[in-house]
């Protein structure tokens, strides 16, 4: 059973890391700021979700798993709001 949990964790975290790398490649290679923002927000949210999913079965208690879900929700909330704000500022043409 524990090897199945380990395999699940490794697969999910590896997929999450792949999405993070994809987002970083987008940050470095896309030509303008809005598309970089798009790449970062989408890929990083998905990457974080996969990493959190991979870590969920390793928690010994339900409370610990709930904490991971809360962390994921908070990072999604603040990441999405910040991306909206940066996008709004970019559209207005200020820095």
């Amino acid at each position: 059973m524990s090897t199945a949990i380990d395999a699940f964790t490794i697969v999910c975290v590896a997929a999450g890391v792949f999405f993070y790398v994809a987002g970083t490649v987008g940050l470095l290679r896309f030509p303008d700021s809005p598309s970089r923002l798009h790449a970062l927000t989408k890929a990083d949210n998905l990457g974080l979700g996969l990493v959190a999913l991979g870590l969920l079965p390793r928690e010994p208690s339900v409370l610990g798993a709930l904490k991971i879900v809360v962390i994921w929700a908070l990072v999604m909330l603040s990441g999405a709001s910040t991306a909206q704000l940066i996008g709004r500022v970019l559209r207005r043409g200020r820095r």
Partner: protein
Amino acid sequence: MSIQTFLDIALALLVIGVAVWTIVARDLFVAVVAYVVYGLFLALVWIRMYAPDVALTEAAVGGGVTGVLLVAAGKRLDISAIDIDRQKPSMALATLAAGCSILLAGVLMIVILSLPAPAPTLAPQAAAAASGPGAGLGNPITAVLMSYRSFDTMLEKVVLILAVVGVWSVGADQAWGAAPAPFGPDRPYDALVFLAKALAPVGAIIGFHIFWTGADAPGGAFQGGALLAAMWMVALMGRLIELPRIDARWLRLALVAGPAVFLAVGIAGAMLAGSFFAYPSAFAKPLILSIEAFMVLSIAVALTMLVAGPPYRKGAP
């Protein structure tokens, strides 16, 4: 070369790389962003050194609150500080500075590598403090802060108040008593208002939890207070509440509540428990937690007031 050594070396190179980026960045805003990223990587290094409390404090205060302070300052300075940014230091000064830095870093590295072999440590005294006067505290750092070195912690709170008084006194004379300048525009973007409404209550609960659980697990008053201050700042940025006037009585009471309660308990300890700043061992833990509660209030108020700045009145120089 195990995988952990590889990760440690990669993390070390990352930290130094981001620090170099902070120094050589040409724009002030880029340098501040690099410093916040550096603070977050530094929190990972602290975890590697078995210091989760310090990692929490570094991420919250060193990375987060300092970042807000510097970004707000950079924004207010942006207009005409450009000319001083373009000044390049002379080659002689740069070479001299590089020489001094390399010398200092080298001497420090030699000292680090030649420390005495059985390391001197205060861990036994701290563990005794955790089980004795700080009865029942599972977190040795909280025990050190609140009972083994309680006087230092109280004085450090006084330092925070002095810093707030210093920041307030820098304002214009005619503006004394007014509220500090608001954090952002009068009509903030609705994404920011949404973030403030959604994040601030949740973050406040988490901040309180980090303070409460700091008695037995990593956490504590400083970390919880920093998180509460950050949530207050988010609410201020979303214009859900306004900054208080600096002559508001509740503000000043909240600011001095922490060290005042601490000092009162310490003096009472001289009469009731035998020595200055000793706790009666029967209810040491509840006493420590109630002191910490007032400390959290003071820390949250002090950190927010430090970032908000001096009082501001339109038209005062």
